[in-house]
Structures are given as structure tokens and as C-alpha cells.
């Protein structure tokens, strides 16, 4: 009887045990997948808004009109004030952000402290020229269709590392290293995966060198 009672008790408790397990399991999954990313990232607005789509209609050379390569092959990145001044010495349109831009930055000769969505750590060496000029890749492959956007999305950044969320990816599957679009993530594994897919090996195409120091200087 004693044994029976014990067994009965055990059976009765296992329901609770399983329930508690499920509760713990789901709660932590919820915390890990939903709450944690929300807590990990904070949001900032860009200093002024920018309409890529509108600007694309005014330039001849697509993205490279403003995000150009310098004579020595280095990539200029985010445009400096000196490029904007060509057109925006005076206010051109009627948007509040443009007026703010002219007043706060152009007239004071101050650079706009743009927040860069794709900024990589300083130790990462990446040559835009090798990818865009030699491998003839599109900007969209890594940066998405930012050229068609009408306003700048908020800049989300990791509160521990300070890096942009675009590096790790925004969608749940990105957390597992998976992605729907090529531009969903910009972590080291994404570079390696693309290199493997395109060239059959993870090494640098131009130097044919492998190893950490090919990209980490």
C-alpha cells in the first residue's frame, strides 16, 4: 500500500512537474526570444531625416553619386558636408528637416553626426572596391533597398557593444544565423557563407589568403 500510495503520489506530481517544466521552458523562451532582444537594443533617431528616394531622382550615378570611391580606390562612406553644400547652400525644398539641416549644419560648417547602420568594428578590414568594382556586386546585396527609402529608420543599437542592430539582424530567424535576404545580417559568418557560396572557399579572392588576419587587421 505504501508503495502504491507513493506511486500514486508520484503520478499525481508528475503532472505538476511537467506543467512547471513547460512554464519555465516557455517563459524563458519568451524572455530569450522576445524580451531579451527588446532589452538589449535601444533606439536613437538620426540627427536629421533623409529621403534617399528623392535624392536618387536628382543624381546621375545611382548610389555612387554620393557614396563614391575616391581616386585611390578607398570608399568615401557616408557623404561629408562638402558634398551636400553643392546643392544645399540654401534651402531647396520645403521639408522641415532640410531647413534644420541648413540651419544647424550647413551654415555652421559642422558635419552631421550620422549614425551608421552598417558600421563594423574597427578591427574589421573590408574593401568596398574589391566587392563593388572587382566582384561587380550591387550595393543592395549587403545594404538592402535603402536607396528606395523615403525616410531614415530609427537607429537601433546594442546597449552592450554599441553596434547597430543591422549587424546582428532584426528578424527572429536572424538570431539563429538564418536569413531571408542577403542583407538581413552582416556578421562574420555571413561574409564567410557568401564567400563559400560564390567562390567555393572562405578566403579572400584577391589575395587568395585565408585566416583571421585576412579580415581582422
Amino acid at each position: 500500500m505504501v508503495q502504491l500510495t507513493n506511486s500514486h503520489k508520484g503520478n499525481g506530481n508528475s503532472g505538476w512537474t511537467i506543467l512547471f517544466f513547460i512554464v519555465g521552458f516557455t517563459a524563458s523562451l519568451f524572455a530569450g526570444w522576445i524580451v531579451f532582444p527588446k532589452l538589449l537594443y535601444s533606439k536613437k533617431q538620426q540627427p536629421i531625416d533623409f529621403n534617399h528616394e528623392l535624392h536618387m531622382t536628382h543624381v546621375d550615378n545611382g548610389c555612387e553619386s554620393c557614396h563614391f570611391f575616391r581616386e585611390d580606390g578607398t570608399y568615401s562612406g557616408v557623404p561629408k558636408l562638402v558634398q551636400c553644400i553643392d546643392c544645399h547652400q540654401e534651402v531647396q525644398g520645403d521639408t522641415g528637416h532640410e531647413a534644420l539641416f541648413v540651419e544647424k549644419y550647413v551654415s555652421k560648417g559642422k558635419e552631421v553626426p550620422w549614425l551608421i547602420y552598417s558600421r563594423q568594428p574597427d578591427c574589421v578590414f573590408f574593401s568596398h572596391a574589391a566587392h563593388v568594382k572587382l566582384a561587380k556586386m550591387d550595393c543592395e546585396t549587403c545594404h538592402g533597398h535603402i536607396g528606395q527609402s523615403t525616410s531614415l529608420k530609427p537607429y537601433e543599437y546594442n546597449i552592450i557593444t554599441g553596434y547597430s542592430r543591422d549587424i546582428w539582424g532584426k528578424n527572429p530567424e536572424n538570431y539563429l544565423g538564418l536569413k531571408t535576404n542577403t542583407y538581413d545580417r552582416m556578421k562574420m559568418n555571413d561574409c564567410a557563407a557568401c564567400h563559400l557560396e560564390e567562390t567555393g572557399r572562405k578566403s579572400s579572392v584577391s589575395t587568395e589568403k585565408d585566416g583571421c588576419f585576412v579580415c581582422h587587421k
Partner: protein
Amino acid sequence: MKIDRRCFLSLGIGAAAGTALSPLPWKLMDDASIWTQNWPWTPVPPDGEISYTDSTCTLCSGGCGITVRKIDDRVVKIEGRENHPVNNGGICVLGLSGTQLLYGPTRVKSPMKKINGTFQKITWNQALSEITEKLLTLRAEGRSHTVAAIAGSSRGTVSALLQRFLTAYGSPNFYCQSSIEDSFSLSHIQPQNNKTIPGFDLENADYVLSFGTGIIDGWGSPVRMIQASNAWKTKNLKLIQVEPRLSDTAARSDEWLPSKPGTEAILALGIAHVILQESLYDQAAIDYHSEGFVTWRTAVLGHYHPDKVAEITGIDAKTIFTVGREFGQAEKPVAICGRGKGNTPVSVAEMSAIHALNVLVGNVNKKGGVFTLPEPNYISWPEISFDTKAETSLQTKQIAEGGLLHRLPSAINEAEDSVTLLFVADANPCYTLTDTKEVIRAFKKIPFKVSFSSYMDETAKLSDLILPNHSYLERYEDVPVTSGLRNPVIGLTKPIVNPLFQTKHTGDVIISIARAMKGSIESSFPWKNYYQCLKNGLGQHWNPLLNNGVVEITYIPEFEEIPRFAFQIPNDKPQVLLEGNENKMDLTLIPSDSMRLSSGYIGAPPFMMKTIPDTILKDNNTLVQIHPKTAEKLELKQGCYAILKTPRDEKKVKIHLSQGIGEDIISFPRGLGHTAYDSYLAGKGINFNELIGPVEDPFSGLDVAWGIRASLIKA
């Protein structure tokens, strides 16, 4: 049914399993590792556009061309400029460290005035009106001649502007550091009183006899000298180094002749004896440079037989004969002098004895020889206008007789109110002049001192007013370079970056002071600013200089134009005697120069200090080099402390034993012991200049001290 401990355990396991299957632990781990790379003290250079701009280095008298690498507006690296006539792509450690002088903590950021012993920031208007008022008052009181100025060099527009200002103002008291070129000039018969400067065609020589010259230790234009000596190795050129210490140059030479210090002139005369005795000299050259030759020849043959010379110099007679014959028979031999970096003059007797060798073998103004060049007088400005006050005042005697800078401190110390206002530009006399204690005493005696220094050096620190100049990477300025180059060149510094601080070009400051003085002084300065003054003054040279950054002044003299050399009859003791009592102080203290230490008016930047070995500086102590036998005699050991005493001062030093120095000689590194600049330089070691005082050459009056008597006692 009851909730028990097992349920909570299960909850925990569930939570752990859930967490493991969520990105939380993995992402946190990844982020934590990235976080460690982003600690705020990890320097991350900002990214930007790379650009290169050519300019000229002014940190020593070498005048190298530089190419400055910038990322956006920030200077990140200074490299040697390719195809530059001086340094062709090479650069020295001081030139390379120039970035640290631009951005380092030692910059003076705005005009500063000393109030109650501490510097306080003032505006340019306040600074300039204070100076102008003082100058006007002194002039009204008829004391214009009590205003003096010290410039780092006698060449270049800024030095010339300062001298012009003083002249127009009515003061004859303009001084600058003497150099080896003064000794060279004095050993020649001057054509039309023009100064003669030497140009050594070392690139084409085939035998170099160096009397203590630090060929790879910073003599002349250091990078050019290193490049020339590198080329010698492939050309099988023979380099003979006469020097009491195994310097880097001696170590690199084909033969090191460790002569007793100060006996170089006698050795040269011994070598001349061999050339004369064996008739190895060039008759045509002697016919031209005939002044005094016959009597000189008799004296040399009579008194400087190699056997006798060997006794004095410590170099055996056989070697003297060999060197004499080799030198006499070589196709393009060159004898060169100027100890170490060659910043201090040598006696005219010594210069004459050594240069006589070049004249004897007829290698003057010939390819691979020594060229006697005219001073590159390239600045053409309108005449200075004088008023009566200036004319009267200019008749006053110079405070330091003969215009010799080393005489200035004692002249100030001896007379009351001899100098009431002193300007110092591109110079740091409170560090570089010998007998530093006396210099500082004299400096403190001057009621008002104005420094134009960009850096908080010893002189600026002791000044009453600092009017900081732009750094050499922020300004236009001509850089005339002679430094033993075959052809003198004029370089141009260009503003690579906009001035970082509230500094002003010294040229502009002098012009604005002059203009504020009104009258004839104002009319002597008819330029709006320094840039205009530079452009107008350089005339035909300006455009090529602006476009190419450098102009080479090629000069091929007609034979008749060559200044004639004057053979000076050597007296019994052509060597310069040392200060101090030989019986009380039986050791000889000599300085040692190194490319790794800047001993001029610019202090060594932090990067340079990192290159000094611990045989020179250890735990902020200067190490002196002595021979193990000297150490044994004095009961000193490697690394022990000793008191080094000279007639001028005494200091505690550390001992370093070396076979590379003669017995009874102490070698002391020059360039340490700064008391100003920043914590990277100040308080490290001892300044050699504190231990030595000036010794005048009886012929020229130049300070030709090459060492001093000393004693070492175990501390």
C-alpha cells in the same frame, strides 16, 4: 496532488532548457566578447579620406622634404618625400615623430603672460599692445639698444625679419647660434666679404677621412648622410673615422683611429706631413691657393713628423703614414670635420689643418670633393629706412662683443640693465647654450623676455610672455638648407592642417609689431602679412618653390671665383685646451651625439625617447661611458653611481663600462636633462651643457669647447 520541491526543480530545468534554446546566452557571450574590444581606452583611429601633402621638415637644420599623410584633417604619419634633393624618401626618427609635436601636450595653445610666477592666457590684442607699449617706451627713453633678440639660425625670412625689426628699431643686438660653417668661412680669404660655406660632394667621393664627424650620428643633413654612407658600402669607398669613442659612425667605418680627444688638428697635420714629404700634393692647386703655403709647409715638415704626432694623438706612426699615402693617392679624397652632429664650431686652426688636406690633394670645387659655395642670399627686400633715433642707437656697441651669442649671458650678468627686453625665436638658449646655470641666471636678470616658441621649452618657461608660433605643419616658411650639401636648397613648409590653437605666425607677429610702431619702423615693413613678405622677398624663387616645395641652388663657380684658402701657420699647440686643472681633474669629459636623441632646440618627442637604450638612460639617470681600466682605477663598477665633477657643475651619474672609449675619457650623452616640455621628456637624465662652459678660439672668438676636465668619484 501537491506542488513540491520537484516542481520548482522542473521549473528551473525548463527555464534552463528554454534559455539554452533562445539566443540569450549565446548573444550575451558574443556581445561580452565584443564589449571587451570597445573599452573606452582602446584607441580607435577615425576613418576618413587619405591624402598626402608635401612639405619641409624644420626640426633640425637638415631640411628634409616630407610627405604628410592625413586622414581627413588629421595628420597621421610623416614620411620622407620621394625624389627630394636632400633626403630622397628617407626620414629620421625625429622627423617621423613630428606628429607628436603637433598634437602633443607640449604645445603652447594661446598667448601666455606670466603673472605672479604663473602663466595666464591672454588675447593676441593684449599681448601685442603690451609688447608695442614696452618697445615704444624704451625707444622714447633712448634705450633701443637694450632690446636684444636670439634666433635659431641666421638664415631664412623669419630670422631676417627679426633682425630687420631690431635694426629698424635701433638695436645692434641680434644674435644667433654659431655653427661649423663659421669656422669654415673664416679659414678662407673672402671674396667681397661674402661668407663661404662648404658643400661636400660625398656621394661622388672615393675616400673619406672623417675627423670626429658623426656621419651616421646626425652630422649635416642626417638622412642625406646616412643615404650617402649606405651608397659607399656598395662603391667600396674607404671611410676612416678619427674619434676617441666608438660611435655608430666609427663602428661602421673601415678603419677607426681612436685618437686622444682634441688632437684631431695635430693628426691632420701629421697626415699633411706625409703628403708633403712624399710629394703627393697637387701642384696646380697649391699654385692657386698659395697664400702662406711655403711657411706652412716648412712648419708642418719641421714640427709634425708622424713619430711626434703619434705621441700626442695616440695613433701610431705607421697608420699615419698609411692614411697619408692613401689619402694622397686616392682619386677623390675628402677630409671632413665637425665633431658629432657638428653643431658646435671647431677652432679655425683645426678647420685649417683639416681643410688643408683637401686643398693639398686638389680636391676643392671638383666632383667628389669639397665645394666652397657662396652664401645663398636669396631674400630681396626693400632697404630699411632709419630715423635719427635708430641711427644713433645703432652706433652703440653690441652687448656681446663680436655678436657672439655665447658671450651674451656673461655680458648680461656682469652689467646692470644691459638687456631690458629679449626676443627669442626658434631657439632654446636656456637649454642649448653651455654653462646653462649662468645662462639661466642671465635670463632671469632680463626684466622682460618674449618667446615665440610653439612648445613649452626651457626658454619659454622662463619667459614673461609667450607669443606661440604655428607649428611647422601649420605654416608657410622658407627653409634654407646648407648643412654640407653639395648644392644649397631652399625648402618650403606649407600649412598641412589649419592651426589647432590660437597661435600666430612669428613673421606676422613681427610685422604687426613693426607696423604698430609707426614711422620709419612701419615703413621698413611694407607688407600686409608674412605671406606677402615671403612671396615678394623670394622673387623669382617663389613660384618654383610654391609649386615644387623645393629649389636647388646650383652653383658652378669659375676657377677664378673659388675663394682662396689661407694656409695658417700652425703654432705649437693647434688643439683647443680644455677648461679645468689637469692635476685636480685628470679625466676628459666629451659629449656623445646620437640620431636617437635630439640635442637642438627641439626636444626629443615621446616616440624618440622610446628608442633610447638603457646604456644611455636608465631609471631617469644618465649613464656615462668609461673604459673598464678607468673604472678599475677609480674603483667603479658597471651600473654604480658616481659624482661627475667639472669646473662648471657636478652631477650624479650612473656608470656604463665600454671598451669603445679611450682610457681616462668620459663620454656623456647629449640631448637629455630637459626641465621643460612634457612628462615624456622632462626630468630624464642630465643636460650636458650644464657641465661645460665656453672656451673661445683665440683666432675667431667662437666657442669651440669640445670637452672639459672632469673627475669621477664613487657616490
